[in-house]
């Protein structure tokens, strides 16, 4: 008897496997077996009884096609076929409508479709389809705004030798006037203060000051036009200080950043930072253009 090593770990031989297969086949088909030992005979008898028990006739016949709704079998295929048919019909219809000319019975359909497409585009893009010329022009920045980010930061003190001894084009507000300055920020008609050289913003800023010190009324100084004198960049840095955290553009509708506490040491450091109005005699000024 040849033993197989390796694969079967030497435990089984082909002859043993064939003998077991013959035993199983006899139990499976014929039910006749020649036992070699008493244990084998007992085991074979028990397995035959167990097999006969398992092979008893079922109590109930198998279910038939009538017991189960076999019409549902073809349902997925029918759905797919219907989808293909509907898609084809829609495609043919759309091509026929798209190629309709005047006098064609499908011409009104094409007109309706074009109208629907137009309405859909207007709904999808209301800003581009209905431009409001005045509002949009008033909300957009003028094109002659100098690029603030390109200018080097002004680390020098602002010019304190102006006529009234104040920083030009700057309103003085107190810490309690933050909401008022926010109201000022909602002035939509005024152009951004970066390029503002007219009187209107200065007058507004004069109105929102608390008025404790009459000398703090803002007056317009023509020299504050940044386009005229490049040394007037503190005016623009004030706006940046008002809109800290933004991209540098002024936010007319935003609330002013209160910044450091009024009267604090950072107010007077004069280092040209966002709140650097060191020339404020009261020491409570915030950058306000």
């Amino acid at each position, binding site marked *: 008897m040849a033993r197989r090593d390796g694969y079967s770990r030497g435990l*089984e031989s082909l002859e043993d496997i064939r003998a077991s297969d013959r035993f199983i086949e006899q139990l499976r088909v014929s039910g*006749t*077996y020649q036992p070699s030992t008493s244990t084998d005979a*007992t085991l074979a008898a*028990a397995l035959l*009884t*167990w097999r006969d028990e398992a092979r008893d006739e079922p109590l109930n016949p198998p279910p038939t096609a009538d017991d189960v709704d076999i019409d549902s079998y*073809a349902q997925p295929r029918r759905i797919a076929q219907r989808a293909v048919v509907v898609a084809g019909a829609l495609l043919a219809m759309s091509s026929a409508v798209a190629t309709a000319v005047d006098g064609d019975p499908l011409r009104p359909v094409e007109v309706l479709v074009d109208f629907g497409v137009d309405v859909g585009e207007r709904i999808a893009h209301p800003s581009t389809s209905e431009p409001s010329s005045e509002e949009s022009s008033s909300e957009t920045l003028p094109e002659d705004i100098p690029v603030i980010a390109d200018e080097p930061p002004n680390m020098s003190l602002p010019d304190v030798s102006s006529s009234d001894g104040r920083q030009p084009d700057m309103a003085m507000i107190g810490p309690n006037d933050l909401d008022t300055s926010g109201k000022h920020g909602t002035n939509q008609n005024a152009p951004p203060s970066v390029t503002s050289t007219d009187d209107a913003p200065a007058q507004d800023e004069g109105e929102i000051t608390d008025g404790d010190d009459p000398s703090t009324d803002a007056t317009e100084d023509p020299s504050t036009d940044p386009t005229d004198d490049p040394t007037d960049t503190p005016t623009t840095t004030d706006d940046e200080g008002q809109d800290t955290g933004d991209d540098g553009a002024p936010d007319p509708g935003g609330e002013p950043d209160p910044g450091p506490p009024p009267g604090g040491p950072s107010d007077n450091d004069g280092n040209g930072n966002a709140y650097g109005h060191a020339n404020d005699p009261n020491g409570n000024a915030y950058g306000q253009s």
Partner: protein
Amino acid sequence: MLTRSQPASSSSASDPGALSALARRAADGDEHAINDLMGEVHVVAHRYCRARLASYAGGRQLSDDIAQEVCIAVLRGLPRYEHRGLPFEAWVYSIAHRKVADAQRSYHRSRDVSYAELPDMTDNSPTPEQSAIHLAEVGWATELLDRLPEKFREVLILRIAAGLSAESTGRTLGMSAGAVRVTQHRALARLRALAAESLVGEVV
């Protein structure tokens, strides 16, 4: 020499692919194919369930019910069978295996078993003594089989009780016929050892 009357073995096991072809025709809605397929599936499913539940009280009715459930599940799942890529026998076996496991769990949760209505007719069944011997043999065989590893037990159930060939058993379990023969040899060796151990214990 042991000789026992031989019940009809399943005819589904012989032709590899014949059952799958029948299943394809049944999936297309061929009513004759459905009935033929159910005849084949019901026989094998009933034998498998009966072999697994032979020692259960009311196992005859229980296995009959599960065989019906397997057939209905196969009928309802036929449209999806094509996409699974399994042999049809393996698919049916997975359904039957799951149904039997569910029945065993519910059986152990609730011992309420429904029995068939007693017929008002002459009882030609074996005598109580014969029934006791029969039940003892079945119970002993089932006990030994339950102590085998699952793979060994499944191979012996499909080969002996369900009457499948080695090739069909391999298709059902995802094995080659040679692997089935090696596995059944090892299962039989283990079963002989368990039987000898059990018989020695009874004598002692």
